[in-house]
């Protein structure tokens, strides 16, 4: 990996604001973005990327690489939790292992957005419909995670805690973030197909500088949140911290390798790798909290938000990019 790539990634406004947030906690400034403002940013980003994904999907329907990419993405979101589960079982019980594993099978939309910004500032083209795989990777990993609990949980789990498949489907498909993302994708698709006029009117809202600005703001907040998670990592132990750094690298490599088979070009390949490497802090934690209360929330949240997210934002993206450059070209 060329260090210049890392530097070029770090010197984009979103990543710089992420550092500003990190540092504010380190020097104990009282900078704070009070609730529900982060929720506003998060809702907006999900709506915007969903909508954009939808109309790009409409335009990309004829693209040969679309369908294989989606299938590969879903396959990865099914496979990664199982791999992670096996590794995590070395140290953790079924509940914690399954919850953490599900988070790594799923994705982080903001990591994806940051990767897109990186590609843009590098002038590397990519396809907008890569949002479709993103939108379809949340649910499968939740299903696998909860399925693992259902199958592997100790037999003496009390009756009240038996998970029903109905419940699993509900949690995986109707979680607010997943629902908004998929819903906006469908709306974008329908609008592109039937109302080009309406599309023109809403496109600048979902793509223009407002998106970039909100991305910066949200990363500022994520910097604060990530830094606040760090002290709680001590509890988690070094095994988990190592896991949170090595697994994204492993998954990112896997992603690059698969992207090569898909012949989707270097831009899309980076995005695919980032989807594999990133871990969810929206849908999955919520679903796990509801159905697997035995798992410690601080484990699956501190690792994804406190380690994997910053790692990917700062080092992961340029790392996977240089992998893509060396493997694909």
């Amino acid at each position, binding site marked *: 990996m060329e260090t210049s790539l890392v530097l070029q990634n770090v010197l984009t406004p979103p990543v710089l604001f992420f550092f500003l947030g990190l540092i504010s906690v380190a020097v104990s400034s009282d900078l704070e973005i009070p*609730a529900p403002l*982060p*929720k506003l940013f998060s809702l907006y980003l999900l709506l915007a990327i969903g909508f954009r994904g939808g109309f790009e999907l409409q335009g990309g329907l004829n693209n040969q690489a679309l369908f294989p990419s989606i299938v590969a993405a879903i396959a990865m979101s099914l496979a990664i939790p199982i791999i992670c589960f096996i590794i995590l079982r070395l140290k953790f019980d079924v509940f914690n292992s399954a919850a953490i594993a599900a988070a790594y099978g799923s994705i982080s939309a903001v990591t994806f957005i940051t990767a897109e910004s990186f590609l843009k500032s590098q002038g590397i083209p990519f396809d907008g419909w890569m949002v479709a795989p993103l939108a379809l990777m949340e649910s499968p990993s939740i299903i696998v995670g909860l399925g693992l609990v259902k199958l592997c949980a100790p037999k003496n789990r009390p009756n009240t805690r038996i998970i029903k498949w109905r419940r699993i489907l509900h949690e995986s498909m109707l979680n*607010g973030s997943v629902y908004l993302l998929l819903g906006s994708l469908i709306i974008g698709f329908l609008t592109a197909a039937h109302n080009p006029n309406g599309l023109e009117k809403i496109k600048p809202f979902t793509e223009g500088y407002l998106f970039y600005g909100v991305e910066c703001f949200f990363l500022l907040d994520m910097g604060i949140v990530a830094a606040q998670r760090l002290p709680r990592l001590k509890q988690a132990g070094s095994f988990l911290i190592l896991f949170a750094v090595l697994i994204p690298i492993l998954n990112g490599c896997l992603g690059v390798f698969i992207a090569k088979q898909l012949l989707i070009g270097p831009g899309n390949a980076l995005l695919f790798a980032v989807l594999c490497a990133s871990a969810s802090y929206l849908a999955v*934690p919520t679903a796990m909290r*509801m159905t697997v209360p035995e798992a410690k929330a601080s484990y699956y*949240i501190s690792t994804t938000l406190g380690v994997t997210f910053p790692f990917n934002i700062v080092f992961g993206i340029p790392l996977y990019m240089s992998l893509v450059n060396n493997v694909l070209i």
Partner: protein
Amino acid sequence: MKRLDLIISERELDTIISALEKAEVPGYTVLKHATGRGPQTIVSEDMEFTGLGANAHVIVFCEGDILEKVKNHIGSTLSYYGGVAYVSDATEL
């Protein structure tokens, strides 16, 4: 009259409210966006955006005999998801 203070996760609020209604409380008040620490978890404001939600503080003023019913209805939720419930005396102004 008694005063019941319930502190639970916002995610279980609907379940708890239904339980209170089943126990036929005369009314209740909910304060959301509470944070805190219990024997099991720390709940902080900065995680609200993820959908995990913060805590809710539920206050019920009711007769003592209703409290037994409340206990029966909310017990399993509390033991499954955590949360605390305390009772004090109160009189109408």
